[in-house]
């Protein structure tokens, strides 16, 4: 694990070598000790972002201060003009964008992340196989025992205990919940008509825990639990994670490659030239993991501060190209190259200095 991380850093740094030279603003502004850009938002991609910011500071001298206070807080601060950029798991809807008075907000994908179902069933050594309707019914409280016939049918040859299933959910609003409920809503009518899709929903059964680390901890310490966390937390906590049946009908384990597969070809499904709001949940690719999602960076299309605007756009350009090299080591999947081209074109359209 540690070796993999080190390798990732080395690759990331090596990849930096081919980058364009530092921005001229750095010299114009002189000082490199002060903070140049501020951002706030999602906690989910924070490990990757913080690596980006430190690599970028070393490379260009541009310091970025990011507060991982949650997507909701990040969007609020962007709306109030407190920060230069926001970060969110859940893209804003047109109605939400319309409510922001300061101008049009651009939302660009930064990386691909995944949500995994983790469980703690004493004595179970085989990898659990699950389908969306079974997961929905577990989280709805309709399947209550581990040896339920529907679970047994999916996991032939695996001995499942007759114990009660303990559901663990996110008590705080989160992008992880947004992705997970997106999947359940798409595939289960009962879920769509009940708890529905959102960053916080009313969970019919179970225990609530705060944050990915809270869910992982609760699952780890309580037998017969099932919960959902971001991929990195399952890996770090060495929790077993379920293989999920994707739309093509295959059971796929959550790996970075399967996440990357979920994003493959996504550039052909974009709703508009500068609109990247596509769900990566349950995509039709054969080896795609069904619970994948973009993480988003939010910025104003018209940047009022010339120097800051240029720095911000330069950083995002770097992040979607060179920055992608650090993704895999931290359990995220890089953006597909064809999508990066589209993002760069969108960034060219940011107007700077009005």
């Amino acid at each position, binding site marked *: 694990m540690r070796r993999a991380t080190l390798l990732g850093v080395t690759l990331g740094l090596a990849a930096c070598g081919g980058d364009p030279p530092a921005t001229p603003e750095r010299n114009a502004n002189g000082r490199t000790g002060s903070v140049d850009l501020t951002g706030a938002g999602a906690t989910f991609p924070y490990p990757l972002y913080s690596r980006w910011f430190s690599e970028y500071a070393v490379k260009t001298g541009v310091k970025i201060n990011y507060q991982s206070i949650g997507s*909701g807080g990040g969007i609020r601060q962007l709306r109030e003009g407190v920060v230069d950029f926001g970060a969110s798991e859940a893209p804003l809807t047109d109605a939400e964008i319309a409510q922001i008075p300061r101008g049009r907000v651009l939302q660009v994908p930064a990386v691909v992340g995944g949500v995994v179902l983790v469980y703690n069933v004493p004595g179970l050594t085989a990898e659990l196989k699950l389908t969306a309707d079974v997961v929905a019914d577990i989280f709805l409280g309709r399947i209550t025992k581990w040896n339920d016939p529907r679970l047994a049918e999916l996991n032939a040859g695996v001995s499942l205990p007759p114990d009660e299933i303990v559901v663990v959910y996110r008590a705080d609003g989160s992008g992880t919940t947004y992705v997970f409920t997106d999947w359940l809503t798409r595939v289960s009518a009962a879920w769509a008509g009940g708890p529905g899709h959102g960053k*916080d929903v009313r969970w019919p059964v179970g225990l*609530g825990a*705060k944050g990915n680390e809270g869910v992982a901890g609760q699952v780890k310490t*309580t037998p017969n639990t099932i919960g959902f966390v971001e991929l990195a937390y399952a890996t770090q906590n060495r929790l077993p994670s379920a293989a999920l049946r994707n739309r093509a009908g295959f059971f796929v384990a959550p790996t970075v490659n399967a996440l990357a597969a979920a994003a493959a070809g996504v550039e052909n499904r974009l709703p508009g030239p500068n609109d990247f709001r596509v769900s990566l949940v349950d995509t039709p690719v054969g080896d795609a993991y069904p619970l994948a999602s973009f993480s988003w960076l939010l910025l104003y299309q018209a940047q009022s501060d010339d120097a800051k605007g240029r720095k911000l756009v330069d950083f995002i350009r770097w992040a979607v190209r060179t920055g992608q090299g650090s993704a895999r080591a931290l359990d995220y999947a890089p953006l597909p190259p064809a999508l990066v081209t589209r993002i760069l074109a969108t960034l060219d359209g940011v107007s700077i200095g009005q």
Partner: protein
Amino acid sequence: MTGLGDRVWRGTTTLAALAIPASLGVISVVLLVGAWPTLRETGLALVLDRSWEPRSGAFGVAAALVGTLETSLLAVLIAAPLGIGTALYTVEFAPTGVSRVLATICDILAAIPSVVYGLWGAAILVPLVRTVVAPALQAVGGRTPFFAGPSYGAGILTAALLLALMILPFVTAVSREVIAAVPVAQREAALALGATRWEMLRDAVLPAAKTGIAGGIALALGRALGETMAVTMVIGNRHELSWSLLAPGYTLASLLANEFGEAASDAHLSALMAVALLLLLLVTLAVNAIARRLVRTVRAGLAAVEVTR
């Protein structure tokens, strides 16, 4: 010249003293303004309704309100006798070395950050409650509704136990100081009248220390009501009203901790402000009411002593 110095001093200290009411005022006003839309829309349903669904605009915190009171009162019930007992032992019975060590340990406990208590609670106390405490309680009182249902480890009882541990140092430290402050002459007088050691403690020491101990308990209750991180990590975070202490629950403070970061809609934010206001009100009222009531009984007690004398 001295006059000027005095005036400067007086002004400075007055300003310092004003900072306290000023900050309380600012906090109350901000919360009240923020909470106003919810208070107007939801009204009393805020505390009477138990369904909390931000997306459909239902903001009822009955479960969290009950959970807050339940966990805090239970914690005080556990911590108060334990803390007072520890204080009596350290002051009256323990050899100097032992009492010094106990006092230091107590101070260290008080200084542990709440998130560390939370981590310990989630890693050790939650499994302990599930495997040991809950089965034991169910064996004794399994037929009562208080210990009904399965225990997942996380729940009201676990939160109360963790809170008890967290407020124990406060009760102990304050009790220890006030018990130690009771004049030696008073103890000697009681002993000289033929009182046994227990009678001396009961009739001469504890009555004199009562106000201070009550203050310590009020302080501890205030802390328990407002405790956030540690409780969030062990209570199960579920809007549910249950007689069972083993069931998961919620508190006002953990509701704030969970939802403030992601609350994007104005209605949701305003509802959380209302929750904060409620919590502030609860802490202020609880602490003041207890302190006042106890001060009054102590005064009455002292007056009675005067009369009999």
